[in-house]
């Protein structure tokens, strides 16, 4: 019964978005709105000796300046968002979370020190120039390896070192496996950090209404429900007094699930204190420092294999850059651990990471959330192994794939959701085969590459495989209601940042309730409408919220059929719902509209049976036992200009399996966006930081993101291996596009240039250095 599920339907939200009618945080205009700007630390590491805001306060139009001192008891380090999995035994974790305003010392450039509120943002920024902070600069830690040296300056002085956490996960016995191996591939692999560069920066507007005693906060968050609960607790308000709205958001990508950002804590406090609405919109320069970033890992890894390319074991020891604080626990490095297993049978495994504090912007998950790193490790090691063993690179992957009959597959380590890393379902080889077919793998190596080489052209092919753990718990919920108009309203707690929720969720409901997707009015991320749930992250919206909506819509369907059965004097299972009408299947002339049924279910006069619940409405929830694992293969043919080291991507293929697809059009969009970010990550985006922790390219002039000209046309195909873990059989797809691109670029460029690449990002400069090194060695 799926009229709409699985169909390529244009998005319900696009007319609003494309005509500029959608509400974003900065669109919130309120009478008497005051504007906030932050004095942010110019130092990466310094002690604050004194702060003088008197000149700023004297500036006309300045309403107030606030330091950590002024916050009194409200000043408190933020919550630990995700505790380290209790199920992991061998771990150390030092909880150090960000603070609303730096008190005694600053630990990264851009850390907020003073909040200024003024009649306009212009005046607020003018006032920043008036503030005088006496800093005593301290030694700076930017390099991961240096951070752990005994003489390194301590970022958190109450800790014995800059090590924030250490985790060891193990299965089998790697050393035994190594002893039996025919070949050991060992490498040092570096994967640098990057910002997510959402089109919309962060923003908060807060309004306190003295008459209703209610606080309303418009916040560019991915988790409005938790923001509401947290704010209520911090401000001593009842949860019902706080409404958090996450309106349309121009890209989340993970950093907007971080909480609480200092600005999210401070603006609501300020609005209540001033009894005036206040607004802060992050500018692009602030975003480079103040919004969390991801990456920077250094792996020392080795793969033990038999002569015929079977993996015996993997050992990976890595450093993970946590930045100045670690509010998000260990999610990112745990994802790296999980993804370093790839989709392969790795019987013996030892992985140890140290998460390190540095004087850099805080690290929290960003699209891929550490999965890139793990994928890069295992895919690189397999490539090097294939070369060393003389095995075809596609074949070595095939030989190690988990086989379809082995699912559900227990990887015997712990995942970010504290549960064992189980792969619910999968069928990997067809995906790889399809990618090889689409990229014309054999023809490339038989004809195309030899011919290009004969012409002096450098062509390379990459093909890599990846898995994506998606759709983790705990749960989401939704309320579905048929209104008297016959239209359907749906509310869910998760926020939306461009994923097409207004359409894909509407499709799920439309099939159950018998209306068109256009007749389903979605509300996401407004806690007055729905106040349960965790948020939009970890590629879980479609899986967790989608199935909650599905469950609620099924309930409503039962109610519709029950009521209609009474009216039409027919058994519920003899009825069908078509185009907003419930009718008797055998006699469609006997029918009643959904609107009339909704009115009947909500009578204005007369008695009802005791226990009657009004309305054609249901609220339901869904929580999976563990995540659903999507997978796929990317393949690419790239040409490198030998002189300029510029790239031209001739062909890019994505074959992807995320179980049942709700809307292929939206899925394609997700993949496109992910690949674009992956390409940025692999070849364009790099934060250049000097030894003082100063970012040298905090603008789009020098921080390069790929433009439409730099992202190739993608050829896409899908296979469908439904997840057995949820009724819809869906898996997440939000991060898939981005995960394998680094590994793909490294392999394809190696193939083109005959180099070895063990780092991301790559750039023409990097290729120039590698070429020079290779020539010097030759």
């Amino acid at each position, binding site marked *: 019964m799926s009229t709409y599920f699985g169909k390529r339907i244009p998005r319900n939200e696009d007319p609003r978005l494309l005509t500029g009618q959608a509400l974003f945080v900065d669109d919130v205009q309120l009478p008497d709105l005051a504007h906030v700007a932050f004095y942010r630390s110019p130092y990466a590491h310094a002690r604050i000796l004194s702060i003088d805001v008197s000149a700023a306060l004297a500036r006309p139009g300045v309403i107030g300046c606030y330091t950590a001192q002024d916050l009194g008891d409200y000043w408190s380090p933020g919550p630990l968002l995700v505790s380290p999995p209790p199920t992991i035994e061998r771990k150390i974790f030092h909880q150090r979370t960000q603070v609303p305003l730096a008190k005694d010392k600053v630990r990264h450039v851009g850390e907020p020190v003073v909040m200024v509120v003024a009649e306009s*943002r*212009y005046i607020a*920024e*003018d006032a920043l*120039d008036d503030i005088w902070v006496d800093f005593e600069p301290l030694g700076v830690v930017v390099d991961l390896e240096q951070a752990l040296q005994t003489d390194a300056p301590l970022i958190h002085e109450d800790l014995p070192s800059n090590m924030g956490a250490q985790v060891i996960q193990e299965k089998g016995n790697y050393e035994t496996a190594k002893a039996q191996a025919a070949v050991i591939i060992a490498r040092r692999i570096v994967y640098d950090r990057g910002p997510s560069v959402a089109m919309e920066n962060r923003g908060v507007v807060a309004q306190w209404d003295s008459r209703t005693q209610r606080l309303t906060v418009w916040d560019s968050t991915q988790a409005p429900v938790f923001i509401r609960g947290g704010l209520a607790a911090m401000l001593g308000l009842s949860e019902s007094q706080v409404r958090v709205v996450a309106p349309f958001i121009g890209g989340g990508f993970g950093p907007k699930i971080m909480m609480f950002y200092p600005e999210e804590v401070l603006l609501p406090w300020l609005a209540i204190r001033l009894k005036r609405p206040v607004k802060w919109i992050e*500018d*692009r*320069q602030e975003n480079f420092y103040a919004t969390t970033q991801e990456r920077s890992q250094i792996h020392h890894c080795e793969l033990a294999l038999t002569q015929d390319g079977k993996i015996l074991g993997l050992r990976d020891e890595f450093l993970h850059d946590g930045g100045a604080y670690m509010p998000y626990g260990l999610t990112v490095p745990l994802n790296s651990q999980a993804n370093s297993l790839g989709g392969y049978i790795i019987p013996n495994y030892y992985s140890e990471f140290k998460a390190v504090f540095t004087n850099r912007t805080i690290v929290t998950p960003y699209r891929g959330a550490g999965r890139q790193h793990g994928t890069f490790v295992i895919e690189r090691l397999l490539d090097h192994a294939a070369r060393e063993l003389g095995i075809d690179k596609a074949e070595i992957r095939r030989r190690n794939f988990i086989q379809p009959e082995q699912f559900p597959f227990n990887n015997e380590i712990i995942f970010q959701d504290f549960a064992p890393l189980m792969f619910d379902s999968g069928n990997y080889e067809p995906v790889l085969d399809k990618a090889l077919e689409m990229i014309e793998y054999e023809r490339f190596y038989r004809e195309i590459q030899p011919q290009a080489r004969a012409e002096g052209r450098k062509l390379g092919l990459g093909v890599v495989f990846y898995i994506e753990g998606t759709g983790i718990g705990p749960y989401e919920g939704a309320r579905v209601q048929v209104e008297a108009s016959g239209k359907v309203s749906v509310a869910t707690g998760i926020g939306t940042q461009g994923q097409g929720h207004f359409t894909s969720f509407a499709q799920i409901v439309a099939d159950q309730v018998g209306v068109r997707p256009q007749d389903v009015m979605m509300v996401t991320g407004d806690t007055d409408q729905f106040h349960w749930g965790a948020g939009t992250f970890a590629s879980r919206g479609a899986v967790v919220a989608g199935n909650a909506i599905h469950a609620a819509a099924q309930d409503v369907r039962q109610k519709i059929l029950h009521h209609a059965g009474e009216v039409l004097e027919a058994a519920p299972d003899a009825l069908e719902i078509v185009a907003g009408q419930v009718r008797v299947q055998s006699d469609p002339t006997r029918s009643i509209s959904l609107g009339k049924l909704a009115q009947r279910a909500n009578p204005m006069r007369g008695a009802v049976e005791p226990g009657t619940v009004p309305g054609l409405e249901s609220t339901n929830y869904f929580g999976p036992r563990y995540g659903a694992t999507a997978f796929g293969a990317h393949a690419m043919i790239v040409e490198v200009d030998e*002189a*300029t080291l*510029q790239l031209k991507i001739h062909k890019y293929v994505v074959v992807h399996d995320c179980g049942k697809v709700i809307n292929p059009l939206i899925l394609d969009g997700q993949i496109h966006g992910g690949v674009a970010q992956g390409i940025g990550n692999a070849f*364009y985006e790099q934060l*250049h930081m000097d030894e003082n922790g100063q970012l*040298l*390219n905090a*603008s789009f*002039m*020098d921080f*390069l993101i*790929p*433009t439409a*000209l*730099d992202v190739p046309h993608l050829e896409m195909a899908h296979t469908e291996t439904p997840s057995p873990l949820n009724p819809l059989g869906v898996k997440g797809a939000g991060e898939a596009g981005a995960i394998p691109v680094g590994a793909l670029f490294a392999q394809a460029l190696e193939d083109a240039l005959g180099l070895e690449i063990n780092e991301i990002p790559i*750039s*023409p*400069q990097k290729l*120039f*250095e590698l070429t*020079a090194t290779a020539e010097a060695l030759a």
Partner: protein
Amino acid sequence: MKPAAFEYIIPESLDHLLQIKAEHGDEAKPLAGGQSLIPAMNFRMARPSLLVDLNRLPELAWLHVKDGELQVGTMTRMAELQHNPTVAAHVPLIAETVPHIAHPQIRNRGSVGGNLAHADPASELPVVAVALGARFRAISASGERWIPAHEFFLGTFTTSLQPQEILLEVTFPTRQDRTGYAFAEVARRHGDYAMAGVVAVVSLNAQGQCDSAQLVYLNAGDSPTPAVTAAAMLIGNSGTPAAITAAAQHASMEEIAPYGNLHASTEFQRHLARHLTQQALKTAFERARAEFLPHP
């Protein structure tokens, strides 16, 4: 990223503009296309106290060919240079270069005078101006003067314009017989500031031998950087591969002085410059030889 407070004035005429400049000097910053100035102000790296908006003075935007020169009013937009057929017909090098300058939106706003007076060593048009021997007409309330291109650019963001002066016009010599031009650059992405770039101009005598050559580089020093010795090495040559390779080697390794930046080290910039010089000279010689044919 909001600018510091500033005054803003729309002059009523050129004379009014010159009066303002006479009174305020450097503190009165001309607002042309705003493509460099406005970002600098938003970053608060530039804090002019007075902006003088040139956008409302139509007499500043024009171009025509006269007396063997392409004469361009200071407020002529880059997009006009790119698309006006007169430019392509008479100074083909400009039409070839302008598409490399940033993006269409920026070229629609960005002005010729603003670009040149900004004197960014990574910018394309100053290199073209130096290579072609353009002349700059500076004007102030007390008179006007002509400045040759090689004397106009003094260093990074520094020109020989005096505080009371504005750049009113720039003239480029029109194409010459038996002369070939080429522009080549490499940027990370199309429209970015280039990691390296070069303009090559070669003129041939009736025997097909080079009798004058220019090689000028962007992002290779504080201002447009000519490679005089390398260019001189081509004199008397017909553009043989060996001569081109030698000139490119000398220019890129001995004459230019790139600083290196986030996207390219000095060594990589030199490597790119060498490659681009070879490419540009090859094209320039080919075009010069083609110029033996009558003009269309």
